[in-house]
C-alpha cells in the first residue's frame, strides 16, 4: 500500500521532471499528456527529462556542459530525483550524501542514477524538490517497489525508486538499514553508513544500484507502475533505457545520458543534482518528522514501534507533527511494511526516511516506521549499503545528516554539493555526522533511534535552503543566455553572467513561473501566483553591457498602433518588411519608411542584429518631446537636502555629520558620463518648527537664510539661488554647510514639522519646473502646529487585535494627498529618520513610499556608532543612478494582463505605475491575471516600459521584454517556478494586506494559499500516495521554510520588543525589494568563519542555533543587519586573528568594525564583510555578538529555522503544520 502510494509519488516525480524538462516536455507532452494524467509525470518525465535538459540545458545546461546544461535543470530534477531516490532508498541521510558522492564519484553512476532518475528523476525531478523527494522518499519505499514494476512504464520513477529499490533489492537490506537510521534520526547509524554507502554506491554502485533498482524497483512499484507505467514503458524504453539506465545501470551512466539528453548532461549534472536533491530531500524529511515526531510521536511512537517495530514509530514520528496524519501513516506504515516486506523492508526503511527526507518527510514518517526497522537494520546494512544501494539510501541520509555534520564541520552540505569530490569525503563525515546526529537516536540504538525519530524530525532531513543554493551554484557555471523562452534563471544567490539574447536579464525581470498556465482555471486551481519582479534600472555587473540607447528619430520610438507596445524582438515583420505584426495584440502596423528594412529568407530583418530593439530583451529609447510633461523637454533634476535642526538632531550629532558629509558628496552627484560634471542642481533647507531656506547663489559672499515660519501654507521663498550648480556655488555652499551646525548649536527648539518640509521641497521643484529628489533628515514626531501634524498613537495593546491594521495606516490623510502632488511633479522623497522614540513611520513613510523613495531609520542614533552606517547609506543614496518622473507600464500578450503592482510608487489609474523617482535598487512586483486563454505556441509575452528622465535630464524609455512559456499541464507549471520570486510576491502581498486585515488573517491567507499550491501539486502532479506523505515540487521545496520566515517576520508576528515603527519601516522596506534582497532578508546568510579561503566564501549553514558550534565564529547577514557571532569556547587563534585578543571576555561587543590586523584571516574576513556590504543597497552595521551575551537575543531572532521568541514556529514545526493543512485540503 504504502509502496503504491509511494509509487505514485514517484510518478509525481516523474512529472516534475517533465516540468523541468519543459522544453522536452512540450514535445513530449503531446505524448505525455495521456500518460500524464496518471503518471504523465513519469512518462513524460522521462522524455521531458531529456527535453527538459534540452530546455533547461540552455538555462542551466551551460554549467553542466552541452548536455549538462540541458541536464542541468534536469539534473535538478534528477538530483531531486536522485535525492528522492536516494532518500527513498536511504531516507534523507543517504540521499544527501549519496547524491553528492554519486554525482561526483558516480557521475556516471550518478548518471545512471539520475538516468533512472531522469526518468524517475523527472518524476522525481518535480518531486526532486522537497516534495518529490519526500514523495519519493515516502514513495520511494512504495514507489521503489512499484516503480520497478512500473519501471517499464515508469522506469524513471522506478529508477528513482529503483535506486532505492535497487538499493532495496540489491542492498535493500543495507539501504533499509541505512534508511532506518535516517528515519530513526538519520543522525545515527544510517547517516554514517548511508553516506558511506551512498558514496560508495555512487562511486560504483550507481550503475549497479540502478540495475538493482530496475530489478528491485520494478518489482516493488510494479503494481503501481504497471498500470500507469504501461504506457510509459515504451517511452521508458526509449528514455527508460537511458533513464532507466538506471535500470540500465549497466548502461548506467552511459545510458543515463542517453536516456534523456538530460541524463547525458546528467552525469555531469548529476553530481550537482545528487547534491541538490539530497539536501532538499533531506531537509524536508528530517525536519518534518523529527519535530513533529517529538511532539506527538511519543504516543504514536509506541504504536509504530510496536507495529513495524521501529517503522511505525518513525513514521509516526514524522507525522507526529501531524498527529492526524501520523496515525494513519502509522497504519500505512504497517502496510508499508508489507510492501517492504518483500524487498520492502529495506525500502520501507529507506522509504520512510526518503520520503521523510524528500518532502513528505512527515508522511514519510509512516515510512519512517519502516525506517526504524531500517535503522535497526541499517547499522548492519550500512556496511551493506556501502556495497549496494543501501549505501545510496544511506548516502542520502548521510547527506541529509551529512549536512548537519557538515554544518558542524562547516560544510556538511558541501560534501553533498561538492558532489563529486566532497561526496566521498562527506559520506564518511556524513556517517560521522549521522552518528552525531544519531547520537541521540543511535545511542538509543536502532530501536531507540526510531523512537527518537518519532519524537523528532531530523532537521537535516527536510529541504535545506543551503543545499538548494549550493546546488544551484554548482550548476550555474556558464553564462545564462536569455534567448530561449521560459527558462528559469539561476537562483538569486548564484553568481552568474547573463547574456541578453532577446529576453530581459533576470537582473531586471524575474518571474514566479516561467511556465504560465494557459487558462485562468489552471491558474486558479494551482494558486501559484503569476507575478514578475521588475527592477527596471537595476545595476549590472561590469562584465554585462548596460542597455543600449536607441534613437528612432523625431518620430519617436516605433510602436504598435493598437496596444502601443514598443518595437521589440516579438514584433513579426511581414510583407517583405513593410509591416509588422505586434506580438502582444497581433495588430498589424506599417513600418515607417525610415525604419524599413528587407527581410532575409527566415523572415527576419537583415539588420536584426544591428538593432538592439530587435535582438535584445532590454534597451532604451530616446524619448521625444511628445513623451515629456507639458510637451517640454525636462529641466535638469535637482536634489534638495532638508535637515532637521531641532535640539535632538543637533545633540545627536546628526546635523554636523550631515553637513560635513554633504560637502564631499556634492562632488558625487549622479551623472551618466563620469567625465562630466553632474548637472543635478542642489538646494538646502533646514527646519525645526519653521523652515530655513538658503540662498547659495554663486554671486553671494555669504549664503542667505530665508526663514519661512508660515508653515500652514508652505511656499518657496526664493527661486534664484536656491537650486544651484554645485561647481558655481561651491564656496557659498561650503560656507553654508560649515555654518549650519554652528548656527543651531544652541538651539532649544524641540518641536518639528514634517508635512511642510516636504511641501517646501515640492514647491521648490515646482517653482523650478523640474523633477528631483528630496533628502529629508528627520528626528522626531512632528507635533508642532502645522499641516501633517501627528500625535503619538503607539499603543501596544492594539497589537493582535482587529485594530492593529490601523497602526500601519497613516494617521492622517494629509500625506496621501501630498504624495499625490509630489508624484505629479516628479518629486521623490528619501527619508532618513533618527528617532529616539516613536515617530510614526507608518505615516511619515507615506510620501517616500508613494514617490519611489526610501526610508532609512537609525533608531537611537549615536554619532560614534551609527555614523558609518548612516554615511554609507547617504553616500550610496545620493550617488546611485536614479531616474525621475517615471511612468511604468506593463503590456502583456492577449490572455493575461498586469492586475496588481507592489512597490514604492503611486497609481492614479489601474495601469500606469507612477514613480516620482526610480533608482537602481527599487523593484516593482507585478501580478498577472488571466483574462483569456494563452497558447502554448506563443507563450506569454510581457513588455515593461519605463518612461523616465535620466539624471542627465534626458527623457528616455527603458524597455524590458520577457517571454515565458505557457502550459496546459499543471505539472509543467510546477516544474518551472521560482520559489524566491514567489516569496517576494507573497511577502509584498502580505505586507500590503496588513493595512486592511488583521495580521492573523493575513498569515492564515498565506498559509492557506501555500497549502493550496502544494495540495494542488500533490493532487494533480504527484502520483497518489499516502496522505501521510508530504510531497513538494522540486522547485518549491523551499516554499515552506521561506514562507515560515515571512510569517515569522516582525511585520506579521511581532515580538514584544519590536516597535510599531520598526514594523512599519520593514513593511515599507520590503515593498520595494527585489528577489535577492527579500531572499536574504527572510533567510539570512550565515557563514561559518572557522576557515577562510581567498577567492571563495565558506558554504553557509542553515539558520538554526543547532548549526552553531560553540567553538566557532559565524557571520550572519540579512541585507540590513550584519552579525559576527562568537562562540563561547572559540579557539584562541581565531580570536587573535579576528580581534587581536586572546580572550573571549575581552572582545568589545560594542565595536562596529573589526580591528585591522595584519594576518590573512583578518584580511579575508574584512574583505568578506566589505563585499557583503557592497552587495546590499544599505550599509550593514556590524554587530559583534558574543554567545550568551544579552545581544544574542537579537541575533537569535535571525535564526529563522528555530522557534522564535515571538511565537514563530520552527521550520520543522511549520512544515508539519503545512502538511496538515495540505492534507486537510486533500481530504
Amino acid at each position, binding site marked *: 500500500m504504502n509502496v503504491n502510494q509511494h509509487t505514485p509519488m514517484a510518478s509525481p516525480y516523474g512529472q516534475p521532471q517533465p516540468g523541468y524538462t519543459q522544453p522536452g516536455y512540450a514535445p513530449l507532452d503531446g505524448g505525455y499528456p495521456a500518460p500524464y494524467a496518471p503518471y504523465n509525470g513519469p512518462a513524460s518525465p522521462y522524455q521531458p527529462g531529456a527535453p527538459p535538459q534540452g530546455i533547461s540545458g540552455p538555462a542551466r545546461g551551460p554549467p553542466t556542459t552541452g548536455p549538462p546544461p540541458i541536464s542541468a535543470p534536469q539534473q535538478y530534477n534528477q538530483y531531486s530525483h536522485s535525492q528522492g531516490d536516494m532518500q527513498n532508498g536511504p531516507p534523507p541521510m543517504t540521499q544527501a550524501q549519496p547524491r553528492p558522492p554519486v554525482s561526483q564519484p558516480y557521475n556516471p553512476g550518478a548518471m545512471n542514477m539520475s538516468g533512472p532518475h531522469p526518468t524517475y528523476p523527472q518524476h522525481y525531478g518535480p518531486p526532486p524538490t522537497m516534495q518529490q523527494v519526500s514523495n519519493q522518499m515516502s514513495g520511494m519505499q512504495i514507489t521503489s517497489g512499484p516503480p520497478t514494476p512500473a519501471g517499464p512504464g515508469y522506469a524513471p520513477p522506478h529508477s528513482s525508486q529503483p535506486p532505492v529499490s535497487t538499493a532495496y533489492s540489491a542492498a535493500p537490506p543495507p539501504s533499509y538499514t541505512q534508511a532506518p537510521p535516517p528515519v530513526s534520526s538519520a543522525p545515527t547509524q544510517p547517516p554514517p553508513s548511508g553516506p558511506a554507502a551512498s558514496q560508495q554506491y555512487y562511486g560504483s554502485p550507481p550503475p549497479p544500484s540502478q540495475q538493482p533498482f530496475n530489478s528491485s524497483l520494478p518489482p516493488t512499484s510494479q503494481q503501481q507502475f504497471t498500470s500507469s507505467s504501461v504506457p510509459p514503458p515504451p517511452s521508458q524504453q526509449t528514455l527508460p533505457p537511458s533513464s532507466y539506465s538506471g535500470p540500465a545501470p549497466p548502461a548506467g551512466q552511459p545510458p543515463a545520458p542517453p536516456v534523456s539528453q538530460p541524463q547525458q548532461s546528467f552525469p555531469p549534472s548529476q553530481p550537482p543534482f545528487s547534491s541538490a536533491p539530497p539536501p532538499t530531500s533531506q531537509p524536508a524529511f528530517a525536519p518534518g518528522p523529527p519535530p513533529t515526531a517529538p511532539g506527538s510521536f511519543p504516543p504514536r511512537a509506541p504504536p509504530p514501534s510496536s507495529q513495524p517495530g521501529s517503522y511505525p514509530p518513525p513514521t509516526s514520528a514524522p507525522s507526529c507533527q501531524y498527529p492526524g496524519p501520523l496515525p494513519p501513516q502509522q497504519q500505512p506504515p504497517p502496510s508499508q511494511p508489507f510492501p517492504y516486506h518483500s524487498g520492502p523492508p529495506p525500502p520501507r526503511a529507506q522509504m520512510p526516511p526518503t520520503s521523510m527526507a524528500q518532502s513528505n518527510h512527515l508522511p514519510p514518517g509512516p515510512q519512517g516506521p519502516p525506517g526504524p526497522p531500517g535503522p535497526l537494520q541499517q547499522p548492519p546494512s550500512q556496511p551493506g549499503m556501502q556495497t549496494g544501494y543501501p549505501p545510496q539510501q544511506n548516502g542520502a541520509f548521510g547527506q541529509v545528516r551529512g549536512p548537519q555534520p557538515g554544518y558542524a564541520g562547516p560544510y556538511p552540505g558541501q560534501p553533498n554539493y561538492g558532489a563529486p569530490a566532497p561526496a566521498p569525503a562527506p559520506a564518511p563525515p556524513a556517517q560521522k555526522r549521522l552518528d552525531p546526529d544519531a547520537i541521540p537516536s543511535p545511542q538509543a540504538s536502532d530501536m531507540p533511534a526510531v523512537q527518537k525519530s518519532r519524537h523528532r524530525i531530523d532537521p537535516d532531513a527536510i529541504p535545506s535552503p543551503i543545499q538548494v543554493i549550493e546546488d544551484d551554484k554548482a550548476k550555474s557555471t556558464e553564462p545564462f543566455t536569455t534567448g530561449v523562452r521560459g527558462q528559469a534563471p539561476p537562483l538569486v544567490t548564484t553568481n552568474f553572467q547573463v547574456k541578453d539574447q532577446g529576453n530581459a536579464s533576470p537582473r531586471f525581470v524575474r518571474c514566479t513561473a516561467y511556465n504560465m498556465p494557459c487558462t485562468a482555471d489552471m491558474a486558479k486551481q494551482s494558486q501559484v501566483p503569476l507575478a514578475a519582479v521588475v527592477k527596471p534600472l537595476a545595476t549590472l555587473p561590469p562584465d554585462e553591457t548596460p542597455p543600449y540607447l536607441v534613437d528612432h528619430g523625431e518620430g519617436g520610438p516605433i510602436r504598435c498602433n493598437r496596444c502601443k507596445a514598443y518595437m521589440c524582438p516579438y514584433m513579426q515583420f511581414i510583407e517583405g518588411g513593410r509591416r509588422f505584426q505586434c506580438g502582444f495584440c497581433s495588430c498589424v502596423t506599417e513600418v515607417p519608411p525610415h525604419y524599413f528594412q528587407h527581410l532575409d529568407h527566415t523572415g527576419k530583418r537583415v539588420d536584426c542584429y544591428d538593432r538592439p530593439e530587435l535582438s535584445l530583451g532590454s534597451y532604451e529609447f530616446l524619448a521625444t518631446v511628445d513623451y515629456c510633461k507639458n510637451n517640454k523637454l525636462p529641466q535638469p533634476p535637482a536634489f534638495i537636502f532638508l535637515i532637521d535642526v531641532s535640539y535632538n538632531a543637533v545633540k545627536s550629532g546628526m546635523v554636523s555629520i550631515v553637513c560635513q558629509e554633504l560637502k564631499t558628496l556634492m562632488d558625487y552627484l549622479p551623472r551618466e558620463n563620469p567625465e562630466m560634471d553632474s548637472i543635478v542642481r542642489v538646494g538646502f533647507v533646514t527646519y525645526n518648527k*519653521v523652515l*530655513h*531656506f*538658503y540662498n547659495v547663489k554663486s554671486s*553671494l*559672499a*555669504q*549664503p*542667505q*537664510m*530665508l*526663514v*519661512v*515660519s*508660515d508653515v500652514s*501654507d508652505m*511656499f518657496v*521663498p*526664493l*527661486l*534664484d*539661488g536656491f537650486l544651484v550648480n554645485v561647481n558655481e556655488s561651491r564656496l557659498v555652499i561650503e*560656507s*553654508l554647510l560649515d*555654518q549650519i551646525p*554652528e*548656527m543651531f548649536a544652541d538651539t532649544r527648539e524641540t518641536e518639528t514639522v514634517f508635512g511642510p518640509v516636504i511641501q517646501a521641497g515640492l514647491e521648490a521643484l515646482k*517653482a523650478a519646473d523640474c523633477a528631483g529628489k528630496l533628502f529629508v533628515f528627520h528626528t522626531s514626531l512632528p507635533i508642532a502646529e502645522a499641516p501633517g501634524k501627528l500625535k503619538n498613537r503607539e499603543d501596544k495593546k492594539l497589537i493582535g487585535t482587529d485594530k492593529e491594521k490601523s497602526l500601519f495606516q497613516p494617521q492622517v490623510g494629509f500625506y496621501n494627498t501630498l504624495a499625490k502632488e509630489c508624484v505629479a511633479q516628479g518629486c521623490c522623497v528619501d527619508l532618513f529618520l533618527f528617532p529616539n522614540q516613536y515617530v510614526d513611520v507608518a505615516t511619515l513613510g507615506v510620501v517616500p513610499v508613494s514617490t519611489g523613495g526610501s526610508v532609512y531609520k537609525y533608531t537611537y542614533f549615536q554619532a560614534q556608532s551609527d555614523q558609518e552606517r548612516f554615511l554609507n547609506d547617504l553616500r550610496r543614496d545620493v550617488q546611485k543612478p536614479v531616474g525621475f518622473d517615471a511612468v511604468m507600464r506593463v503590456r502583456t500578450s492577449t490572455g493575461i494582463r498586469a492586475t496588481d503592482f507592489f512597490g514604492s510608487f503611486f497609481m492614479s489609474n489601474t495601469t500606469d505605475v507612477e514613480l516620482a523617482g526610480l533608482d537602481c535598487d527599487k523593484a516593482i512586483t507585478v501580478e498577472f491575471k488571466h483574462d483569456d486563454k494563452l497558447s502554448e505556441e506563443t507563450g506569454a509575452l510581457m513588455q515593461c516600459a519605463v518612461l523616465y528622465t535620466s539624471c542627465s535630464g534626458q527623457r528616455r524609455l527603458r524597455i524590458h521584454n520577457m517571454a515565458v512559456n505557457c502550459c496546459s499541464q499543471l505539472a509543467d507549471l510546477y516544474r518551472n517556478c521560482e520559489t524566491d520570486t514567489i516569496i517576494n510576491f507573497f511577502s509584498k502581498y502580505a505586507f500590503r494586506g496588513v493595512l486592511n486585515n488583521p495580521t492573523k488573517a493575513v498569515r492564515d491567507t498565506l498559509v492557506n494559499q501555500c497549502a493550496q499550491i502544494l495540495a494542488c501539486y500533490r493532487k494533480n502532479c504527484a502520483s497518489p500516495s499516502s496522505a501521510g506523505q508530504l510531497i513538494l515540487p522540486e522547485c518549491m521545496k523551499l516554499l515552506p521554510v521561506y514562507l515560515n520566515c515571512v510569517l515569522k517576520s516582525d511585520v506579521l508576528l511581532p515580538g514584544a520588543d519590536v516597535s510599531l515603527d520598526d514594523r512599519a519601516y520593514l513593511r515599507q522596506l520590503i515593498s520595494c525589494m527585489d528577489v535577492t534582497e527579500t531572499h536574504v532578508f527572510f533567510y539570512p546568510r550565515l557563514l561559518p568563519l572557522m576557515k577562510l579561503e581567498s577567492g571563495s566564501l565558506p558554504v553557509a549553514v542553515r539558520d538554526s542555533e543547532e548549526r552553531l558550534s560553540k567553538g566557532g565564529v559565524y557571520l550572519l547577514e540579512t541585507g540590513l543587519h550584519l552579525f559576527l557571532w562568537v562562540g563561547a569556547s572559540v579557539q584562541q587563534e581565531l580570536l587573535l586573528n579576528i580581534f587581536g585578543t586572546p580572550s573571549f571576555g575581552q572582545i568589545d561587543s560594542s565595536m562596529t568594525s573589526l580591528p585591522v590586523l595584519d594576518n590573512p584571516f583578518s584580511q579575508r574576513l574584512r574583505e568578506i564583510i566589505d563585499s557583503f556590504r557592497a552587495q546590499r543597497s544599505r550599509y550593514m552595521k556590524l554587530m559583534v555578538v558574543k554567545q550568551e551575551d544579552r545581544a544574542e537575543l537579537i541575533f537569535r531572532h535571525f535564526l529563522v529555522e528555530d522557534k522564535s521568541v515571538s511565537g514563530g514556529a520552527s521550520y520543522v514545526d511549520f512544515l508539519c503544520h503545512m502538511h496538515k493543512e495540505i492534507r486537510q485540503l486533500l481530504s
Partner: protein
Amino acid sequence: MATFPEYIAQNEERDGVRFSWNVWPSSRLEATRMVVPVAALFSPLRERTDLPPIQYEPVLCSRATCRAVLNPLCQVDYRAKLWACNFCYQRNQFPPSYAGISEVNQPAELLPQFSTIEYVVQRGPQMPLVFLYVVDTCMEDEDLQALKESLQMSLSLLPPTALVGLITFGRMVQVHELGCEGISKSYVFRGTKDLNAKQLQEMLGLTKPAAAQGRGPQTAPQPLSNRFLQPVQKIDMNLTDLLGELQRDPWPVTQGKRPLRSLGVAMSIAVGLLECTFPNTGARIMTFIGGPATQGPGMVVGDELKTPIRSWHDIEKDNAKFMKKATKHYESLATRASTNGHIIDIYACALDQTGLLEMKCCSNHTGGYMVMADSFNTSLFKQTFQRVFTKDVQGSFKMAFAATLEVKTSREIKVSGAIGPCVSLSAKGPCVSENEIGTGGTCQWKICGLDPATTLALYFEVVNQHNAPIPQGGRGAIQFVTQYQHSSGQRRIRVTTTARNWADAQTQIQSIAASFDQEAAAILMARLAVYRAESEEGPDVLRWLDRQLIRLCQKFGDYHKDDPNSFRFSETFSLYPQFMFHLRRSPFLQVFNNSPDESSYYRHQFNRQDLTQALIMIQPVLYAYSFNGPPEPVLLDSSSILPDRILLMDTFFQILIYHGEVRNQAELHLFTKQFHLKENASDLIYCLRCF
C-alpha cells in the same frame, strides 16, 4: 494797535495759529451767519528757536474734566499761590515746586510771549527712533540701484541709536534679521496671506521674550531692540551690505504680466512687527514702491498687463473691482499703525499709478509722507527723500512722532472737528461739539508724524446762545496741547494758548469783518471742500462751494441789487473770491485729466501743508525773471508773457519755466543761478515735483 494783518502775522509767528475770524461772533446764530466758520489753521510744531528749555512738567487744572495747562491767560494769586483756570474757572493750588513764585518771579509759562511753550518731560524711558524700510524689489535694476543708494545714504543720516529694520518684498515678503554674522537671515512670508499681529509674532519668534519674562519677573525690561530692529551703529555695515546685495525679485515675470508685488502684506507685516515690538513708540515705516500691489490683500490691479489699473472713469462706473477691498485693507492698517503711533510713508515711483488712492489713508491718517515720482532714479525722489532727514539747528530731525493734540476751549465755544493728517482719539469732553466737521466728536487727535509744516484745520462752533450775551471785553480762549516724541527721544509737551475777543455781530459786524483772515478762510474752506470731495460727487462740492461764496458775498459785500458792477468787497475779503475761483479749478476738486492716484496725492499734500504752501497750491505763483531787476511776481495771465522774460510758475507740485524766445547761454546761466537760490529756500516738500 497793530492792524489785523500784523496781528495775524504776529500770532502765526508766535503760536502757529491762524483763525478765519480774529474777532468772534458771540452767539451761535450769528456765527452761523458768518458763512465761514470760526476755525483755525494750526501748525503744532511750527519752528520756534526762542523757546525756553523747560525741563519740568506742565501744571494742570485740577478739574478732572478740564486739565487745562497753566498759561499766561490765567489769573494768578501770587500771595495765595493760587491760579484760576481760564477755561473752567477752577481755582488751583500751585504745586510745591512753585513756592517761590511771585510777580517778579514768574515761570515762563505765565509770560505772555510764551503763549506757546514747550515742556520736556523727564519721566519714562528714552524712546529710540525706529525706522523700518519696506522696500519693493520689483523694479528695474536702474531704479533699484538708485533706491539702494538712497537707502544706504539715509543710514548715515540716522542718529546712531536709532533702530532700523528692513523688509523687502516682491512676490514674497522678507523680514530681514539684522546683525547676524555670517549667514544673513530673513523671514519670508507669502505675499498672498494676511497675518494678524499675533500670528506674525509667533512666526517671527518674538514671543519668546515674553515667555522668559513670565518665568523671571526680575529680568530686565524687554530690550529696546530685537533681531529685526537694531541700532544703526551696530548694524550699519551689515545693513549696508544687505542693501547692496539686494536683488530684483527673482521670480519670473511672463510676457504680458505685471510682476507680483505683495505690497499689502508687506505693509501689514511692517505694521504688525512694530505693533508687537514698539507699541506707542515713535516709528516710521518707509515704504518704497515701484508699482501697484498685484496680489494678496491690498492688491489694486491684477497681474494681467492688458487690464489697466482703475481710472476715475472706472471708479465712477463702479468698475474698479479691487478698490474697495484694498481700501479697506489699507484703512485697517492705517488704523493699527495710528493706534500705536506709527507713521507710514509711501514713496511711490512709477510711471503708472501705484494705488495711492487705496493707500492714501496710510499716509493721511498717520501723518506720513506720500511721494509720487516717475522713478527712484530722479533727483525729485532723491532730494525729497533726503529732506525727510533734514535737521534743525540743534541737529535734531525736523520730525516728531506719536503726537496727540488736545484742544481745550472756553465754555462759549466748542470744537467740531479737525481736517488734517490725524485720527480721532475719540476723547469726549465738555468742549466737544455735537456738530461734526471733518474728524470730529473728539477733543483729541493723534498725529503720528509731525513736522514743522504740518498743519491741521480745526473747526469750532460757537455755542453761546444769543440770549446769553458775553460781557464786553470777554475773550474766548483755546488751548492746544500737543504731546509728542521729539526726535531726540524725549517726550515733550507743547502748549499753545490763544484767545480772541468776542463781538456781537449785530452791533460790531464791522469789527468782525475787519478781523477776517481771507487767506486762512480760503484754506479752511478749501480743506472742507476737499474733505467733502473725498466722499461726495465733484459737482455737489462745487455747488456747495459756490453757495458759500455767494452767501459770504451777500453777507459782507457791498452792492446794489441787480447791479453786478456795483459790487464791492472790503479789502479783507477782496482776494477770497479769487482763491475760490482757483480752488474750483484746482486738481483738489477737479479730477479731470488726473488719475485717482494723482488726485490722492494732491489732496494729501494739500491737507497737511501750511497756509502759505496751500495757497500756492490753489493759486500758483508766477515769477518773472529779467535783466531789468530782481524777480517779481506777476499776474497769472497771458499778459505776463513777454519776450525778454523768463517766467517761472510755482504750483507747489511743479515748477514750470517759460523761456519766452530763444535765450543765449549767458541768460540761461543767470537764470539757473537765480533759480537755485529759490529752490534752496523752498520748504520741505516743496521740491517734490521739481523737474
